[in-house]
């Protein structure tokens, strides 16, 4: 599986910015103009063909490695011309994560963390109020559901069918809130804990990010023997894990 961008053409021999759907990767490509086209022998205009190379890139699963695949741009010929592998040593990402809130199942704010300025600074009292009212609003958004999910309809969805019986037919509450300045993604675990992640409006891949944060929470908070549930989270390893995860990307 690879994506073939339509109008990104590398400027050969000069630094070029290649937008990648997930991150913006800036790297210098020093391509050799004498690349042999595999089918150059029977191309009528091999030089034109070479100048219109397309780059396809895909991020490896680990996220640290990119494969760049050069294509001939002519629609008739789609043979790969070369394959490069590069690591993220030269990456600059555009991930802006403003803040993370964790709301316990009873509506209390048990963790809040600001990663990036851009949202209003609120006092801890205000934050508690926002979290509490969001807890209520989340419940109302569940109530308002105009078409409650049917058990049969949702059984096709593999991610929800893992949940035990009552949850499959229960409407999910608010998942994404969009405003003109930020976007809030809410992920509710089966035990009722809510993770709110505030990012910039057009931010892709929040789902995987919030799942990763949930993993960090499970590893470093829930497995911490000194942590009592429903109490504010003070786990240094969790903080550091978030730093390593969120700040590296921003």
């Amino acid at each position: 599986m690879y994506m073939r961008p339509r109008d990104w053409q590398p400027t050969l021999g000069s630094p070029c910015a290649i937008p990648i759907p997930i991150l913006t990767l800036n790297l210098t490509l020093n391509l050799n103009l004498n690349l042999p086209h595999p089918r150059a022998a029977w191309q009528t205009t091999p030089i034109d063909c070479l100048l219109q190379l397309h780059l396809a890139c895909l991020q490896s699963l680990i996220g640290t490695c990119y494969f760049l695949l050069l294509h001939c741009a002519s629609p008739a010929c789609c043979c790969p011309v070369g394959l490069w592998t590069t690591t993220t040593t030269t990456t600059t990402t555009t991930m802006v994560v403003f803040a993370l809130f964790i709301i316990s199942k009873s509506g209390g704010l048990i963790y809040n963390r600001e990663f990036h300025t851009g949202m209003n600074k609120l006092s801890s009292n205000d934050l508690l109020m926002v979290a509490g009212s969001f807890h209520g609003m989340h419940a109302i958004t569940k109530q308002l559901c105009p078409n409650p999910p049917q058990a049969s309809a949702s059984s096709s969805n593999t991610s929800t069918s893992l949940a035990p019986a009552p949850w499959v037919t229960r409407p999910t509450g608010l998942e994404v809130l969009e405003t003109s300045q930020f976007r809030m993604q809410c992920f509710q675990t089966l035990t009722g804990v809510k993770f709110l992640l505030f990012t910039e409006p057009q931010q892709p891949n929040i789902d995987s990010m919030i799942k990763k944060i949930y993993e960090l929470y499970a590893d470093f908070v829930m497995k911490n023997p000194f942590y009592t549930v429903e109490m504010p989270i003070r786990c240094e390893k969790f903080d550091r894990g978030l730093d390593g995860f969120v700040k590296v990307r921003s």
Partner: protein
Amino acid sequence: MVLYSFYIFDRHTECIYSRRWTPPRESSSGKARPESGGSITSNGDQPAHAARNHSDDEKLIFGLVFSLRNMVHKLGGEDDTFLSYRTGEYKLHYYETPTRMKFVMLTDTKQNNLRPYLHQIWANLYVEFVVKNPLAPVEHPGGIGVANEMFERGLETFIVAVLPA
């Protein structure tokens, strides 16, 4: 494209116009959702849901939208505006006029932001057929003067034209 409902709230928390396209709640015109299954739902599957009537829905939506708007102002600053939210089942689109009238539309989750359309409904339909109507009162207690024939028909054609089923 599935459209569930549409509401207009005036600046005093009152719902002055509402319209639903969901079959089990109201037998209004066409636009059935794909998996209607109204009988299954009313079979005591969700009794609390069925017991609630329309005016309760309106109040809930107003309260929700009002609090979300306040929360957004608190978090993002005064010039931040609430646009929409999405759950796993539906999406709510929101538009507020400078006079604090609120236009709310519930659709399926695949819909992009409908804010421009809500703005058009306000500018081209509400202002034209309700505000400029000499017989309509200034305020609309209980929705008097909003649901006139021109407005209804305009809304119907607008929705059919802009949001094809």
